[in-house]
C-alpha cells in the first residue's frame, strides 16, 4: 500500500482495525479478571489505552514481516496474528501456550507469524531488532521489522547503540517508541533531558516523527511511510507515538495514582483510541450500530473461547522443565516436546 491514500479507509478496513483494537481491550480486561482470580500469576502489564499503536502499525506490514516488543506485549502479539487461545493459555502457564507455558505474559513468541517476543529487560530487544534487520539485508530480502518499546527504554544505552548501528548499516527497522509518558512511575521529564523522543532521530541522521498514538489512522499513515522507505531504501526510522496507559504499570500498581493524578487519567481517557475511532467510523457512515454490536459480540466470544481453552489446557508436564534449554545439533527440528502450533487466526 502507498502512504498517500492510507488514510482513506473503507468500511471493511475500518471495522477490521476497530475489531482488532477491541479484541486487545477485551482480552486484557479479561486477563485482569483472571489475574484477580489467581489464574494468571507473576507480572501482568496491560496495554489498555495504547491499542491504536500496535494495531495501526502492524496493519501496514505483512505476515512475512517481523515484529518484536517489550514485556507489554499482548497487544502486539495479537495484532501480529497470534491465536488468542494460545496467548491466553500462555498467560495461564499451560502447555498449549505459545511458549508452552515457559514464557508467560512477558515472553510471548509466535514464530508462525514472525512475532519475535516478548523481552523484559528494558532496551534489550532494540539491538535484537537491528539484528533481524541485518539478517533481512544480508539475505537480500525485502521484509521489515517493527520494534515496539516504551519511553522508558530511551535512556538505556541499548537504545542509542541500536539507533547508531541501524543508521550506520542502513537496516530496515522501524523503531516505534510508545511514549505513554511514564516509565513505571517516573514521568518522562524526570528521566530524559530531551522529552521529544523523535528528536533523537536527528542525531543519528534517520527519519523521525511524532504521531498521535491515540489515532489509529495517524499511526498507520506514519508507520506505512517508514515501512515503505525501509523496504525500498533500507533505511531505519524512529516514530514516537504519543499515547497513554489507562491502567497501572502492572497489576501490582492497581491505583496508578501515586505518580499521576486521577484528573489526568480521566482527562486522558477522553482520548480513548477505540471510542474515538468508533465515533469517527459512525460519523463517516462506515459503521452502523448493528455492526458495532456484532463486533462486540464476536470479540467477546473470541475472548470467552480463549479463557475456556486456556482453562482446559493442562499444566506443562514436569519433564518440560529441562527441555528447550539446549537444541540438539543437527536435528533441524524444534526442541523436544514441541507441539506444532495450529493455524493462526
Amino acid at each position, binding site marked *: 500500500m502507498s502512504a498517500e491514500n492510507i488514510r482513506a479507509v473503507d468500511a471493511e478496513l475500518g471495522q477490521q482495525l476497530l475489531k482488532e483494537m477491541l479484541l486487545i481491550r477485551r482480552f486484557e480486561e479479561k486477563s485482569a479478571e483472571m489475574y484477580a482470580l489467581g489464574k494468571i500469576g507473576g507480572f501482568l502489564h496491560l496495554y489498555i489505552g495504547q491499542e491504536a499503536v500496535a494495531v495501526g502499525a502492524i496493519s501496514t506490514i505483512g505476515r512475512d514481516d*517481523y515484529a518484536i516488543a517489550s514485556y507489554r506485549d499482548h497487544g502486539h502479539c495479537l495484532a501480529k496474528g497470534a491465536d488468542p487461545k494460545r496467548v491466553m493459555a500462555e498467560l495461564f502457564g499451560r502447555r498449549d*501456550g*505459545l*511458549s*508452552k*507455558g*515457559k*514464557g508467560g505474559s512477558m*515472553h510471548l*513468541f*509466535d*514464530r508462525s507469524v514472525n512475532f*519475535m*517476543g*516478548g*523481552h523484559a*529487560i528494558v532496551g*534489550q*530487544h*532494540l*539491538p*535484537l*531488532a*537491528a*539484528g*533481524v*534487520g*541485518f*539478517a*533481512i539485508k*544480508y*539475505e537480500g530480502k525485502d521484509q521489515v521489522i517493527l520494534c515496539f518499546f516504551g519511553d522508558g527504554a530511551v535512556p538505556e*544505552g*541499548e537504545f542509542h*547503540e*541500536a539507533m*547508531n*548501528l541501524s543508521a*550506520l548499516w542502513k537496516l530496515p527497522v522501524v523503531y516505534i517508541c510508545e511514549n505513554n509518558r511514564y516509565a513505571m512511575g517516573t514521568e518522562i521529564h524526570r528521566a530524559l533531558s530531551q522529552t521529544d523522543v523523535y528528536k533523537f532521530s536527528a542525531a543519528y541522521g534517520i527519519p523521525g516523527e511524532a504521531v498521535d498514538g491515540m489515532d489509529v489512522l495517524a499511526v498507520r499513515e506514519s508507520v506505512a511511510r517508514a515501512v515503505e522507505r525501509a523496504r525500498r531504501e533500507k533505511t531505519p526510522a524512529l516514530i514516537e507515538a504519543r499515547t497513554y496507559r489507562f491502567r497501572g504499570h502492572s497489576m501490582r500498581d492497581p491505583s496508578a495514582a501515586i505518580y499521576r493524578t486521577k484528573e489526568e487519567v480521566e482527562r486522558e481517557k477522553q482520548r480513548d483510541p477505540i471510542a474515538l475511532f468508533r465515533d469517527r467510523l459512525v460519523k463517516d457512515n462506515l459503521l452502523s450500530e448493528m455492526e458495532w454490536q456484532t463486533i462486540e459480540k464476536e470479540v467477546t466470544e473470541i475472548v470467552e473461547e480463549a479463557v475456556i481453552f486456556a482453562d482446559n489446557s493442562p499444566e506443562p508436564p514436569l519433564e518440560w522443565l529441562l*527441555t*528447550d*534449554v*539446549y*537444541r*540438539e*545439533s*543437527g*536435528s533441524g527440528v*524444534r*526442541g*523436544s*516436546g*514441541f507441539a506444532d502450533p495450529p493455524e493462526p487466526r
Partner: protein
Amino acid sequence: MPVITYREALNLALREEMRRDPRVFIMGEEVGLYEGAYKVTQGLLKEFGAKRVIDTPISESGFTGVGIGAAMAGLRPVVEMMTFNFAILALDQIVNSAAKLLYMSGGQYNIPLVIRGPGGPAHQLAAQHSQSMESYFCHVPGLKVVRPSTPEDAKGLLKSAIRDENPVIFIEAETLYGMKGEVPDDPEFLIPLGQAVVRRQGSDVTVIAYMGMMYRVMEVADELEKEGISIEVVDPRTLRPMDTETILNSVRKTHRAVVAEAGAGFAGMGSEIAAFITENAFDDLDAPVERVTGANAPMPYAKNLEQAKTPSKEKIIEAIRSVAYV
C-alpha cells in the same frame, strides 16, 4: 600433518566454515580492515568481503544483540570480543537473550551463535584486561562454554561451535595465540563439544586443568615422574557441557584428584569440578579433592604480584603431594 599456530588454526576454522556455509559471518571490533586486534581474522576481509566480515563500532551490547537477532532470523554469526573482558558490557544480551530465548519461546527460537575472543590471564595487562571469566558463563543454563588449549583443539572445537545450534562462549588466550602444533587440514575435522581429553596417562593422581594451567601441570607431571609420582592430566576442553565421565573414570583409576585453574577460587570452576567428583566418586577417593586456584584478588600490574596471582608450579606440587600423602 601441517604445523601451524593457534592463531592460524582459528583463522583456518573461520575460513573453512565461512566457505562451507554462506550464513556464517564474523563481526566485531577491528575484525576487518585492521585484521583483528590479535590477527585472528587476518585475510578474511579480502577473501569474504565487507558483507561477511563486519567491523563494528565499540558497542559490545549493541553488536552482540545484532548477532543474536540475526541468529533468530536464520543466520549463524560469529561475534568477536576483542578481549572477553569487554563481554561484560554485553552480559545482558548473552545471559538474558542468547541463553534464554530457546527456553522462553518454548523451543521456537534457537540461537546458533559463537562469541569468541581471548580471555584469562595475559602479560601485565592489569585488572581490567586480564581475568578468567569462564565461570560467569558456565553458571548460565543455555550457554555452552569452550576453552581450547591447543592449536588442534582451537580448530576442531571452533568448527563444532559454529555448527552448533546453541550459543557458544569460546574463550581463547592471548598467551597461546603464538603456540605451534599439528593441526589437521581436513575441512571436516571436528572435535565434538563436551568431550574431554586425557593429555597424559598416569596412575597416582588426576589433575584437571585447561589452557595455560594445563601446560604448567604437564611440566609438574614431568618433574614428579622422576620422583615416581604418576600424574594423569585431564583437559575438559568444553566446560559446559562438561565431560564428567572422562573425569570420573580417571578419578576412579587414580583415587586422587586436584583441580588447577587460573581464575579466582571463590565459586570458580574448581568448586564445580571438586563438587561433582565428591558427589559422584566419594567412595573411590583416597583423599579430599584439592583445588589450586588464582588468588581471590583482581589481577595486579606489577610483574611479581602478577606471578603470585596465578597458581605456581610449587602450589600445584603442594596440592598433589597433599592428596597423594607424600
